[in-house]
């Protein structure tokens, strides 16, 4: 099943949500942030996409984007790629931990490094950087760290 067929089926079923198909080498489905949980629930329960293999953040000049790659352990095909945009000033995306529990640490990683807040996450704390670190290092405008060393 191609990504286009999957999109057509979803677009027919969720015609009120305004899904958009993004052409390209790796086609994706653009989802509004408010509709993400509803669509994810459908994809897991009805379409058997039970494995959320990666959640990543992308920093564009005018927006942030969160990309979800979904696979199935029961049928062939995939990935189904979902993209959600978030505001540049105050990026917020609903959490999908309630649907795929494995999203927990991945969302924490995106929060840690890109500063995108996942609403409804049970424990949104830093994973890689230490507590008390200021800023989110994978943002393009991150100024860089200022370290003190004993020998320099």
């Amino acid at each position, binding site marked *: 099943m191609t990504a286009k067929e999957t999109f057509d089926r979803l677009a027919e079923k969720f015609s009120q949500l305004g899904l958009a198909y993004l052409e390209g080498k790796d086609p994706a489905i653009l989802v509004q942030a408010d509709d993400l949980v509803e669509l994810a629930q459908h994809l897991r329960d009805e379409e058997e996409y039970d494995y959320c293999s990666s959640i990543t953040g992308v920093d564009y000049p005018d927006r942030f984007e969160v990309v979800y790659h979904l696979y199935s352990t029961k049928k062939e095909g995939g990935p189904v790629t979902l993209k959600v945009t978030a505001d540049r000033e105050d990026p917020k995306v609903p959490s999908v931990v309630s649907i795929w529990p494995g999203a927990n640490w991945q969302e924490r990683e995106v929060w840690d490094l890109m500063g995108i807040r996942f609403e409804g996450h049970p424990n949104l704390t830093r994973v890689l*950087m230490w507590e008390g670190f*200021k800023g989110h290092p994978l943002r393009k405008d991150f100024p*860089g*760290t200022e370290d*003190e060393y*004993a020998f320099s």
Partner: protein
Amino acid sequence: MTQEDLVPPELRRNVLIAPVDWIYNLGRAGSVWPMMFGLACCAFEMIVTLTSRYDLARFGMEFMRASPRQTELMIVAGTITKKMAPQVVRLYDQMPEPKYVLAMGACAISGGPFKDGYSVVPGADKLLPVNVYVPGCPPRPESLLDAVLKLHQEIKGETIRTSPWYRKDVDREVPVPEYGPWGLVLPKGENSE
């Protein structure tokens, strides 16, 4: 004064007269025990160096000791991340004197390809006094063996009269870095106000 003058005839073939430095350094160089400590991919080359094909035990490094209190050599094998840096320095401070540091691979020398990253310390020598640098990414086991021989040379060139670990006026403790809001910071001393 020669050996013949100093030693009675019946002991001449049994007693060796040598400087204290020579015998002291020979003993130390022949039993440098490294710490079982690897940070990244260079650690695998270090492990291979211990296997029978390369056999680090030929140079007196019989064991990787799992406790820093039984070791003399820290092989910094891999990238030192800022998250790991306090633990690396803490392990170094726990080693008994005399102690040596061997920076293995590009990352331990200078940060390597990650030098400009937000998460990597640009070189073990920012944190620790390094004795031998081994270039390579990762260095082959032969390079590590060569570095060990270089370290033996350095040890054999030392003299007990000026060795800093017997002097009370030399502070050899290295400050453990702490996590700050913009990167690693040095600990605030008790006297610094």
